[in-house]
């Protein structure tokens, strides 16, 4: 069908279904699991969230009833699969309130989204002496691609400092912006600290100087409403698997005029208009950036994940998660020798902590024996760990399906681990 994929303003997506965590938990089959003979307490959603049954079923149903390769087949299955897949693009457009469907590119995930921009934007717009700005709290996926392209283009990667609470130094950010700055690329929410960065202030400062901004939204999208037009961000990257969707698919949102100006990233079967050995011309957006058969089934599941998320009243979900965060922080703080890493005023989803004289790995191992899944280590943010002078942290990360008993189990587990290990 000829869908209208244009939209001026954000449509109200929040379905307004009252949020009830115990009902939500019923939707996630994996949460019924036992681990090491204990009830699973899953506090590693920052690494990857669990999936509701509707997502799992969507993927199966696709394979059982609908599968065909998309975009070039004239037969019914292919046409139907193409419509459904392009429908997911439209869902993602609404989800982010992007202006056009063709500003939504499907990628493998956040990492590929950022690599695409680094490689394609970088080869076009970065020249010797130019600068790219990231921050001290970035995930490696928002550092290494920039190091690689800066080295290739003889450009310079500059780093916005943070304070001990784990907040961006906005004055320093402003003073680092200069006429050589070609792009600012920072996390919307930090995966290691939980800090919510002031995205709109960042785009405002950068845009005063005509500098585009990329936000790494991997940890933001599962926890808050993201409106790319309201943020006025130029690129926005995230992964489906962290927001209740399948592994293997993610999004790069990019403003049309930037994407149009950028050369293609990968070459192949979907992204061409005409190929001869003399001269090849490329497709229009979004196809120019989508070479090869995409993760079709993962895309279908991703559509179901956005629908799942959108059925709830968003404010209630946020309130629930903030409650968990406060409830957990208050209790953990009281434990002797425990120190929270990341105490920003605005946080989402994540509590990181260290223990005096105890290695995070040991805490994680004991918690695992208790059925509590947390992440330990550097969380792919080694420069940040170096900043704090620690080898790593224990990180508990939350999703909407966590409840207060998960927090109680965590606190009891950490207490037990401390007793054993010290």
């Amino acid at each position: 069908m000829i869908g209208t994929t244009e939209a001026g303003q954000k449509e109200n997506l929040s379905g307004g279904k009252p949020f009830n965590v115990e009902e939500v938990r019923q939707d996630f089959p994996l949460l019924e699991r036992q681990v090491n003979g204990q009830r699973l307490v899953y506090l590693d959603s920052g690494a990857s969230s669990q999936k509701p049954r509707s997502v799992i079923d969507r993927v199966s149903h696709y394979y059982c009833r609908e599968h065909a390769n998309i975009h070039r087949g004239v037969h019914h299955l292919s046409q139907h699969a193409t419509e459904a897949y392009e429908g997911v693009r439209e869902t993602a457009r609404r989800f982010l309130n992007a202006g056009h469907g063709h500003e939504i590119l499907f990628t493998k995930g956040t990492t590929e989204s950022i690599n695409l921009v680094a490689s394609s934007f970088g080869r076009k717009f970065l020249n010797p002496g130019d600068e790219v700005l990231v921050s001290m709290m970035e995930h490696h996926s928002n550092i290494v691609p920039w190091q690689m392209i800066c080295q290739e283009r003889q450009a310079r990667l500059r780093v916005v400092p943070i304070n001990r609470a784990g907040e961006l130094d906005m004055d320093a950010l402003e003073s680092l912006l200069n006429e050589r700055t070609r792009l600012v690329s920072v996390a919307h929410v930090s995966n290691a600290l939980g800090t919510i960065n002031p995205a709109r202030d960042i785009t405002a400062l950068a845009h005063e100087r005509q500098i585009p901004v990329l936000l790494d939204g991997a940890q933001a999208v599962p926890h808050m409403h993201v409106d790319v037009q309201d943020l006025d961000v130029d690129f926005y990257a995230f992964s489906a698997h962290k927001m209740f969707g399948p592994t293997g698919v993610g999004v790069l949102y990019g403003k049309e005029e930037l994407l149009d100006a950028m050369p293609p990233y990968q070459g192949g079967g979907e992204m061409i208009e005409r190929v001869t050995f003399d001269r090849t011309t490329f497709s229009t957006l979004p196809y120019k950036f989508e070479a090869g058969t995409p993760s079709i089934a993962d895309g279908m599941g991703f559509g179901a994940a956005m629908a799942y998320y959108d059925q709830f009243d968003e404010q209630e979900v946020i309130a629930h998660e903030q409650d968990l965060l406060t409830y957990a922080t208050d209790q953990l703080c009281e434990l002797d020798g425990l120190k929270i890493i990341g105490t920003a005023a605005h946080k989402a989803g994540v509590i990181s902590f260290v223990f005096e004289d105890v290695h995070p790995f040991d805490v994680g191992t004991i918690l695992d024996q208790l059925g509590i899944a947390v992440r330990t280590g550097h969380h792919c943010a080694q420069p940040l760990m170096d900043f704090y002078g620690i080898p790593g942290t224990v990180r508990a990360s939350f999703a909407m399906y966590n409840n207060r008993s998960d927090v109680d189990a965590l606190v009891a587990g950490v207490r037990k681990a401390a007793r054993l290990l010290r």
Partner: protein
Amino acid sequence: MTLPIDAIQDGIIADFGIFDQWMEKYEYIIDLGKNMQPLDERYKREENLVPGCQSRVWLHAELVDRKVIFTADSDAIITKGIIALLLQTVSGQPPEAIGEAELYFIDRIGLREHLSPNRSNGLVNMIRKIKSVASGFSAAG
């Protein structure tokens, strides 16, 4: 005097109502394609090509007496037949009417699959091109 676009569409829908088998419908479309006036070779130019079709489709437009006269061709006969239906509806209409028209008949006569965003199919681009040609004419006129 040409009928309004919607009246023509409704006429086509009524015509197709008599087919109860897809075969008859396609036989009719194929006949329309075969009987369509061939496009003058000199209009088979690069800029008249509709992009993104698996078959090649040329569309040529002229403004005569404030009406848009479309002529078209394709190397695929079914595409050509559907184009014939499209031109029945829009050719000879004022540019403004074309710009405003919603071409619902394609869906209603059961050719919805030809409107899929599947890029192997150029009908969507064909309609876009018709609309943009029309709006070019109304802006100019």
